[in-house]
């Protein structure tokens, strides 16, 4: 089995207004090179889980581990190995131009100007946004801003990439493009990817392991195929399964011998054969 990158069980955090968020239920265990999707409706604790995992929030119990270390106590050590894209992109993009923003982390880590430029050019080409280099960030579209934030997170080629609701506000094409980029990093650098989302469809296509959260608890985990066979439990967690999945699931429930799938072609082929 590949090396364990992250582990979280029973962590909790008390916010300034005394709200306590407990991440209970099952444990989260992530291994090198995995593509993890944390699914759950709004307010289910996904963002808190991410902040606890990265050491940005202090856990008042349980066990949190990142790269074999307590992320809170060893924050300076673990932060160099994480690339992160937050839900609020506007707040994350802090420099006025794309070039300055993407070069921000390499400069902070005191790389030479030559290497900063080299890394900048490489990541821009990889993500396919080299035409945006000198643009003012505020004038970019939502999808472009997400790509710039991704470039800023990946420019140091960290072994772990974490994204909080990356597909929110994107059209289906942009979602697919973003998911393809994450796959590319995973293939190219063996980057471990953890993303939180309530987009079951894109997560199902992208992830090789999914965790379902509801009311602060991790209630289910497994491969997408396994979880998609438990569509009633997904509904209980307030997750809206993709139409094609629900259709194949309902057909199966009504006695049709079809495996629930996200693949339209596969489902179509089966239905044509049946008729």
């Amino acid at each position: 089995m590949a090396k364990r990158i992250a582990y979280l069980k029973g962590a909790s955090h008390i916010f300034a207004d005394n709200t306590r968020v407990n991440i209970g239920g099952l444990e989260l265990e992530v291994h090198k090179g995995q593509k993890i999707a944390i699914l759950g409706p709004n307010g289910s604790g996904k963002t808190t889980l991410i902040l606890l995992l990265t050491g940005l929030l202090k856990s008042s119990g349980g066990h949190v581990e990142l790269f074999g270390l307590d992320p809170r106590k060893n924050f300076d050590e673990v932060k160099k190995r994480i690339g992160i894209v937050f839900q609020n992109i506007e707040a994350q993009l802090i420099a006025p131009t794309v070039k300055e923003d993407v070069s921000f982390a390499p400069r902070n880590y005191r790389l030479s100007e030559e290497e900063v430029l080299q890394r900048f050019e490489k990541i821009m080409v990889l993500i396919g946004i080299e035409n945006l280099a000198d643009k003012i960030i505020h004038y970019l579209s939502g999808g472009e801003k997400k790509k710039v934030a991704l470039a800023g997170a990946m420019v140091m080629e960290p072994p772990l990439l974490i994204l909080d609701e990356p597909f929110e506000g994107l059209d289906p094409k942009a979602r697919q493009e973003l998911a393809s980029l994450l796959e590319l990093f995973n293939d190219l650098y063996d980057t471990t990817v953890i993303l939180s989302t309530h987009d079951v469809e894109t997560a199902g296509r992208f992830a090789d392991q999914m965790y379902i959260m509801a009311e602060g608890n991790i209630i289910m985990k497994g491969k997408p195929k396994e979880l998609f066979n438990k569509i009633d439990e997904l509904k209980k967690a307030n997750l809206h399964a993709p139409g094609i999945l629900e259709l194949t699931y309902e057909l199966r429930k009504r006695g049709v011998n079809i495996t629930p799938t996200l693949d339209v072609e596969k489902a179509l082929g089966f239905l044509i054969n049946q008729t």
Partner: protein
Amino acid sequence: MWIAFLDHLAYDLDSFWHRASPVSKVVFLILAISAIIISTKSLYLAALFVLFLLLMSLSNLPVFTLSLLLLYPLFFGLVFSLSRVGEAATFPLVTLLRAVTAAEAVLLVLATTHYVDLFAVLQIVLPYTISDTMFITYRSFFMILDSLRNTVNIARLRGAYSFFTIFRNLRLAGRVLGHSLIHAYQTNETTQRALILRGYEGRIITSRSALRLSHYDFVIFFLGILLLVLAVVGVG
């Protein structure tokens, strides 16, 4: 969005003032503001006002649009001047000119300098905590203004504003401000987290070439010194 507009002016335009190093522009700003504070002569301050307008124009900046931003200091300067009417005949005019001319000098520098470089220079002379706060505040300030405008629009669309209900409007203003402050706090929290995770340790690192001095910079240094000397010797 003003911040995007200022970014556009600083990055997309070109002039001798744009090409000058942020070091000389910050020094110029300090000298110019010192001259403005020292001077008590309205004629000198009026001359500075015209000079800065001229410099804006020579820097290819849209003078009229930028002048709209000067309405803020003009308004507050006017309120302050009115409160001091009667002290001396020229005092209100000098106060007004000081407020507007100082703001004009700041605008000239902001609209011609990459602000990351600008804050990198400020961090050399200011304590980290102050420059750090200024850096985050500068970004957040315009975001808060946007948030404020959106909240007001939403409130109006939901019937919460009427021209004739003054007390209700005041109550609404309080709520809008509260909402925007909470939003600003949350935004700052995310910005701070992003900064930390991207290796920021209270010091902005910029490329050394951005801070290198050229012959333009000596002209700017000279101009700043000249303005201060004129104010000190009493011409201004």
